[in-house]
């Protein structure tokens, strides 16, 4: 279970997260939506321990992540994977080597076993043909899928997705969304998905949290969000220019 308790984060005097509290159940797919700059990625970074909140707590499976020692942080990260918005691939390694990296560095499996697992994940994400290509030779969408393959190869219990379908064509978006759902159904993976894509949000979510000005203004099932009476939520999900959200 992931718990954020009264998390606050400020950058240069600008409050990005304001007393954010939420509990994400094990095996749940929790989607965070909201305008750009409302603190969605910051929330993910706080959960992954890449950033510590100014105040408040981030608890993962009963262990405190924020301001924890290196060994606790490492232990918690062992069960966690992050799909970065940019893909975050190492540009001097091939696609295959990027996916194999966490296994190679862990030095537990044999070379043969690593190759088998890498091939399996690349096939799963329709990337097998690109195995020997460099990151600079593949598209942005492919980079994102390679990043997902690199996460899946570690079999994490928690996966954090930062805009997993942005920049993907509709067919690949569906492939990724199906895969996220499959990870939950078959392996009980807990997923936190940050997205702007409402179609994906409705398809994936057990619950959706709407983040606005660093606060969760509504957290509900997809149905509950669809039928929300909150004008800010309605404006966002319908993509309307006029409403309480100041687009200027």
């Amino acid at each position: 279970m992931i718990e954020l308790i009264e998390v606050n984060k400020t950058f240069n005097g600008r409050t990005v997260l304001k007393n954010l509290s939420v509990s994400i159940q094990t095996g749940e797919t929790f989607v965070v939506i909201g305008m750009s700059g409302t603190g969605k990625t910051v929330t993910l970074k706080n959960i992954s321990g890449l950033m510590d909140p100014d105040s408040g707590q981030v608890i993962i499976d009963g262990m405190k992540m924020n301001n924890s020692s290196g060994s606790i942080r490492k232990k918690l990260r062992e069960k966690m994977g992050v799909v970065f918005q940019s893909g975050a691939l190492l540009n001097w390694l091939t696609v295959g080597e990027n996916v194999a990296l966490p296994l190679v560095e862990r030095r537990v499996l044999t070379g043969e076993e690593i190759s088998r697992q890498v091939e399996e994940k690349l096939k799963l994400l329709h990337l097998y043909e690109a195995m020997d290509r460099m990151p600079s030779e593949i598209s942005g969408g492919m980079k994102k899928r390679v990043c997902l393959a690199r996460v899946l190869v570690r079999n994490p219990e928690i996966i954090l997705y930062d805009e997993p379908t942005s920049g993907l064509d509709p067919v690949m978006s569906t492939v990724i969304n199906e895969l996220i759902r499959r990870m939950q159904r078959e392996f009980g993976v807990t997923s936190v998905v940050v997205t702007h894509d409402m179609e994906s949000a409705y398809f994936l979510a057990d619950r959706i949290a709407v983040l606005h000005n660093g606060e969760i203004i509504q957290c509900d099932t997809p149905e509950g969000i669809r039928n929300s009476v909150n004008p800010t939520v309605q404006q966002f999900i319908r993509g309307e220019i006029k409403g309480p959200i100041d687009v200027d």
Partner: protein
Amino acid sequence: MKKWIEEQLAIAGRYFISTLEFSGFTVILLLKTLYYTKNFIQKRHEIARQMFNAGVRTFPVLSIVALFTGMVLSLQLGIEMKYYGQEKYLGQAVIATLTREMGPFTAAIILIASVGAAMAAEVGTMKVSEEIDALEIMSISPVKFLVMPRVIALALVMPIATVYINFMGVLGAAVVANSHVNVSFDVFYFYTLQGMHFKAVYVGLLKSFVFGLCISSISCAHGLKADNGAIGVGHATRDSVVASFITVLIVGYYITEIFFRHGL
């Protein structure tokens, strides 16, 4: 006026504290790097790749700079020594200058400008494009994976580059000594050997090894602290070059002070 003075003092104080913090970060980074040298064998291919980048690719530049450094040194010293009729000692003066100071310092300058700057830019780009974050999430230490191979590679390449600069410098100096100062190759060679003191050579090599550690750890530290996209990477690169120059000068002086306080 009082407010203005307070503001300036606050700016100076903030700058001093941030510089101190960054220095501490760099020293800790270097210590962590030294700790991870236990993974030297595991990372040997990456170290070799970095040595190739740092060494082989900069050798054309090193050759030209070293050759002309020796030629200039020979010409300037030769003119002065000829005035006193002491030009036969030109080889001795050139080799002493090169092995003690010019060799390590020239190697440092070239490698700061080429390898150190590239290192800061590369690590900085990785930082702003979330690649370092990705490594941390995968429980891969960026120090072990990125910094250690680069620091060790540069520390090993620097003494080799220094020996090469010394050799090329003497070669250039010998040619100018022969053509412009009328010192024969035999005489130049004889006095070069006379002036080559073991202590000067090993202190020069030690100095270049330490320079290598300093330049690479400073460059990586600046890269790891980069933020704010391409502008941040640019600032990190510039700051790493400036900090490396200053550090090389200060460290170079203190190594000289420690080893040559009582002469050769």
